[in-house]
């Protein structure tokens, strides 16, 4: 397998893992913050919110997913460009829409489908460029 093909495949795997972890993480955080309620922007309000987040299991689950996302992200950018990895991760929004239609039988508007098409074409365009345009660094031992 050529070096470039190997680079593309391992970057794709990492980006897919990033998408899964980030989506689950965001979902858990939103659910946790809904349980806590609106944060008051005063010293005591921020302190109370901080304590509430620490004691919320849903927030912790979200944090675990986001730690996994961070690890995948750190691994991906150790070999690929930031401007390659970052937009490729947006593919998750297209997947979310497809899942909403297939699993939840949601009705999706034409505008949203247009957005999905833009994301997919945008990710395909970025995917056609070389994953790494900076000088290669030595492999970690």
């Amino acid at each position, binding site marked *: 397998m050529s070096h470039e093909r190997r680079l593309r495949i391992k970057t794709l795997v990492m980006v897919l893992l990033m998408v899964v972890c980030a989506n689950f993480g*965001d979902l858990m*955080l*939103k659910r946790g*913050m809904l349980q*806590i*309620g*609106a*944060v008051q*922007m005063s010293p005591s309000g921020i302190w109370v*919110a901080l304590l509430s*987040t620490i004691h919320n299991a849903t927030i912790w689950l979200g944090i675990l997913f*986001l730690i996994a996302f*961070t690890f995948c*992200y*750190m*691994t991906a*950018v*150790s*070999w690929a*460009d*930031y*401007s*390659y990895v*970052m*937009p490729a991760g*947006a593919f998750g*929004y*297209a997947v*979310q*829409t497809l899942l909403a239609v297939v699993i939840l039988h949601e009705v*999706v*508007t034409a*505008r*949203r489908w*247009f*957005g*999905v*098409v*833009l*994301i*997919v*074409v*945008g*990710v*395909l*365009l*970025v*995917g*056609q*460029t070389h994953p790494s*345009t*900076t000088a290669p*660094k*030595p*492999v*970690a*031992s």
Partner: protein
Amino acid sequence: MTRLILMLVFFICCSTGGEIAMTYGMKQVGEPQGFSPKAVLLFIGRAVQSGWVWFALPLLAASFYSLLVLLSWAPLSVVIPASAFNYVVGTFGAKYLLREQVSPKRWMGVIMVCIGVSLVLLT
């Protein structure tokens, strides 16, 4: 409204700044030799010795906490499209700070992704 915009700007600055610093640090660390537990631990060990990674962490933590605050102030459908602007700001950072070669094709892709994400989440 003003505090929402200020918090969004703070979120974008911390998020993009943190990710660019993290990328710079990880480029110095180099890629992992494999995905065995030993190789992953060695990789993490190298990463935690990078000053740029430590510089990135508080920025990413600040972006994370500002995202929590934004989510408690506004619905996801408002917060996420606004933060989609991260894609454009991040690409400028990649070009001018990380010296990545951003071709017209990649720029086109980034802009389409940015508009697409906003359209998907605004509906």
